[in-house]
């Protein structure tokens, strides 16, 4: 029997809290880790996998063995998808490694927004979707309605969807049988030239970069010379194996299987997700489809906050970069903030995640400046400068014109929201390309939008106007000439470069007013009045004033008051520590993040 018929490669997709992890745990519990035939030639000796069962396996791509009702031992490759569905590309490549997906739907909640977003991605990869209704144990379970919802909204059959309770462990055997029956087996050419998809990679201190692959055709073993077809680099394979769990070396990996390859690859950015692995001496004719070279689209400055060490931030950024091929950074300085870094991200969400990791995992206090895209500045003398940092914008007199990056955005929404989203895109200087109905209820809009209109909060606005059902994908298409200006902020008449941003002329006033108002609320009172001004060049376009404080005194301070008043003074002193001094004005660190959230109801 062709070994591939006994393999099932699938992922579990679900809306948050619908039970994905619990279900994964149950599947793992109800299967084994070792197949009978694993003891033969493919696996190395001295395996003691069963004792590994004691480890808590938390959602990693795992190879499981299921003994089916028909007596056969099936290999289940449960491929994990990244937590952030917004990182569409990574998710889509993980799904591309599968033949099917188990769609978990909480049948007390029904089909929800993120359910749909995941499903669309799976459908785009032509996966067989196996719906599975979870939380059947709860009194509020509505399995029949949920089945109807699935059929109507997704358009797939659900009448014999397995009913499970991941919490109680019921229905699991039926689910496992359904996986065998409904999810197709891989059908690759074992003898053909090697064609494998990289769907994930991590950096290991001992082994270098470990790439996680799905072999479509051919096979690979230790000693082979592999070629990564998009980056065109060649490496010697030092180890191959499966995740069962943890790395279990094997002699080879072949068509239909999922595993890992180590090849002394030094950096994750050399082994890009979505790339095709083949053999140098017998390369595949064509690459696997869907590869995208991910480039940072959004930049911002990250600076150590007051009292934080520069080196601490540098170390942390370096560590984060090790496992994140799309994250770039390089040193830069700011008159206002001192020494820091200019960092590049896939988008605003990516940036937020990195900043949050710096703060939580590395326990660092950092200041982030306004996110910005890369502008193409065409100088009067014809030369070109690519500017990411607004403070580096050359003097207006020397500039001929500025071009901004334009993206093509694919927006998928339920048809009810077409009007609202068209208005949103129009307000963001968008140009509609075309629109089509994907299904009776699902519409896809194609717009050209300036990237700097997309990076701030376009995605949040899209989600909120479509009650979570909207999804967005975009890619850079070209640079276009635009009326852009540099908006500066002055505190007490002094320019604070950390707040500078490049905006389209049409928005300069609104943005300037917004920033002034926000800063007025955040900057504390000083001994003198503090004028806050937004300016374009010499022209002040918005202004607010922070009044001087007149009274800050404890009227009564007798015996019993001393301890209490001391606490009050200490609190005041603490508050001052969080301030950053810009010339004569003290600005709290929150000010930098506050002016980023530009949330007018556009």
């Amino acid at each position, binding site marked *: 029997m062709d070994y591939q018929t006994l393999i099932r490669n699938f992922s579990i997709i679900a809306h948050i809290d619908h039970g994905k992890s619990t279900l994964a745990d149950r599947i793992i519990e109800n299967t084994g880790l070792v197949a009978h035939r694993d003891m033969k030639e493919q696996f190395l000796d001295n395996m003691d996998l069963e004792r590994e069962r004691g480890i808590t396996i938390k959602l990693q791509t795992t190879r499981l063995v299921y003994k089916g009702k028909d007596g056969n031992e099936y290999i289940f490759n449960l491929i994990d998808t990244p937590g952030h569905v917004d990182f569409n590309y990574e998710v889509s490549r993980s799904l591309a490694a599968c033949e099917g997906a188990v769609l978990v739907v909480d049948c007390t909640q029904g089909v929800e927004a993120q359910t749909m977003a995941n499903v669309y991605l799976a459908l785009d990869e032509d996966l067989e979707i196996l719906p599975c209704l979870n939380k059947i144990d709860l009194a509020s379970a509505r399995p029949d309605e949920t089945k109807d919802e699935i059929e109507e909204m997704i358009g797939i059959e659900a009448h014999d969807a397995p009913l499970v309770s991941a919490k109680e462990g019921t229905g699991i055997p039926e689910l496992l049988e359904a996986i065998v029956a409904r999810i197709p087996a891989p059908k690759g050419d074992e003898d053909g030239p090697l064609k494998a998809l990289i769907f994930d990679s991590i950096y290991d201190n001992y082994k270098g970069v470990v790439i996680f692959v799905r072999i479509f055709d051919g096979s690979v073993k230790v000693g082979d010379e592999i070629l990564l077809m998009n980056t065109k680099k060649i490496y010697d394979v030092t180890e191959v194996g499966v995740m069962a769990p943890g790395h279990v070396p094997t002699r080879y990996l072949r068509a239909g299987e999922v595993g890992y390859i180590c090849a002394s690859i030094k950096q994750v950015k050399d082994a890009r997700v979505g790339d095709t692995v083949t053999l140098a001496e017998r390369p595949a004719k064509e690459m696997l489809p869907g590869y995208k070279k991910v480039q940072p689209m959004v930049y911002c400055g990250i600076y150590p906050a007051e009292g934080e060490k520069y080196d601490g931030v540098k170390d942390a950024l370096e560590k984060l970069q090790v496992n994140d091929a799309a994250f770039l950074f390089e040193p830069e300085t700011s008159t206002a903030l001192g020494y820091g870094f200019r960092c590049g991200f896939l988008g605003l969400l990516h940036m937020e995640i990195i900043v949050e990791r710096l703060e939580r995992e590395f326990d660092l206090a950092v200041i982030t400046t306004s996110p910005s895209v890369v502008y193409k500045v065409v100088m009067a003398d014809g030369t070109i400068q690519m500017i990411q940092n607004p403070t580096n914008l050359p003097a207006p007199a020397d500039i001929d014109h500025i071009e901004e990056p334009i993206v093509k955005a694919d927006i998928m929404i339920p048809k009810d929201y077409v009007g609202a989203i068209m208005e949103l895109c129009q307000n963001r200087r968008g140009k509609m390309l075309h629109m089509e109905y994907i299904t009776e209820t699902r519409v896809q809009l194609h717009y050209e939008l300036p990237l700097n209109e997309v990076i701030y909060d376009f995605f949040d606005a899209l989600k909120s106007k479509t009650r979570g059902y909207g999804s967005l994908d975009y890619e850079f298409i070209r640079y276009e000439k635009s009326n852009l200006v540099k908006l500066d902020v002055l505190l007490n008449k002094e320019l604070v470069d950390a707040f500078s941003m490049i905006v389209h002329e049409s928005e300069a006033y609104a943005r300037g007013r917004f920033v002034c108002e926000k800063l007025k609320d955040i900057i504390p009172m000083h001994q003198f009045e503090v004028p806050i001004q937004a300016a374009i060049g010499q022209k002040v376009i918005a202004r607010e004033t922070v009044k001087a404080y007149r009274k800050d005194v404890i009227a009564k301070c007798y015996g019993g008051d*001393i301890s209490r008043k001391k606490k009050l003074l200490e609190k005041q002193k603490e508050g001052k520590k969080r301030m950053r001094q810009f010339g004569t004005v003290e600005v709290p660190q929150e000010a930098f993040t506050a002016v980023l959230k530009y949330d007018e109801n556009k």
Partner: protein
Amino acid sequence: MKRKLGIYIHIPFCVRKCRYCGFYSKSCVDDGEHRKYVKTLIDDIESKGSELSGKYSVDTIFIGGGTPSVMDGPLTGEIVRALRRSFDVEDDAEITIETNPKTLDEEKLMEYREAGINRLSIGCQSLDDEVLGTLGRIHSADDFRETFALARRMGFDNINIDLMFAVPGHTMEKWDETLTEAIALRPEHISFYSLQIEEGTPFYDMFKKGEIEQVPDEIDRQMYHHAIARFREAGYEHYEISNCALPGRQCRHNLKYWSMEEYLGLGDGASSFIGGVRYANHPLREYHKNNFRDDTTEFVWTGLRKTVGVSFDEFRKRFGLEFWMVFEDCREELQEFFDSGRLIEENGRLRLSEEGMDVSNQIMSVFV
């Protein structure tokens, strides 16, 4: 040579709580409860006395509250007599009692005199009945006038009155009128405070609901500085942020608080600073042993409350170190206050100017 000690006695009873009051007290005119409380108090006095009288001589006693004068005269006398018995109280000790005009009469004042109370503090707040109503005081302006006159007749020659400004609805005119009359009465000592809206008081609720509005800071400060000018004009010395006195009549007990001198608090809610430890009685129950940093910093920021400020000589004598050596790091932060004239260093002292007092928290917080 014995050390000096001030004693503070807390009486947590009132006729009725004023709308703004955040102090530890409750409405209670039940003589039985008063007696019970005083009995416990006297037990404490006796035990503390035997512990401390060898080391300390008592030069000030302050009976505060609540409204100490809500209690029976003789009962109050018992407290003072107990103190004299258990402690080594100096002959010319300053002994103060806080009172409310409505609760004083000739008999009570006589008792006070006999017990040796030589200083009276009368809660006046305002000589305008409308303002008194807003505050929820139990007395009228006339009540105060009568009581003050009575106290003088009874021979009290060291009287303090408390005045309050920046009350909602208060105007500069009304404040000025109260000042004129208060000064004309010529009390030896005047304490003046702007209304603080404290959490947990009826005023706070009214304020939250928008029923009353806080007087803007600018007007508050105008009233403050105007009062100081009037007092000064009339021969009073403005010696602490909120206190004025005729020459030689500063409150010796309160000065201890701003000079890091020792005091013992007795009774519920009273606080002590003795043997380098700050602690508070039930129900506050705080306890903190001061370290060097606590002592030096507290010396500075409480000392800055006094108009004369902090003396570098005294600092050196007390701590064995030069002031600016210890507070080297603060200089930079203090520079803007020196520049604006709010903080003044001269003649070996560091003090706040009158404008400096307005924003004293900003300066004091540098030192904590």
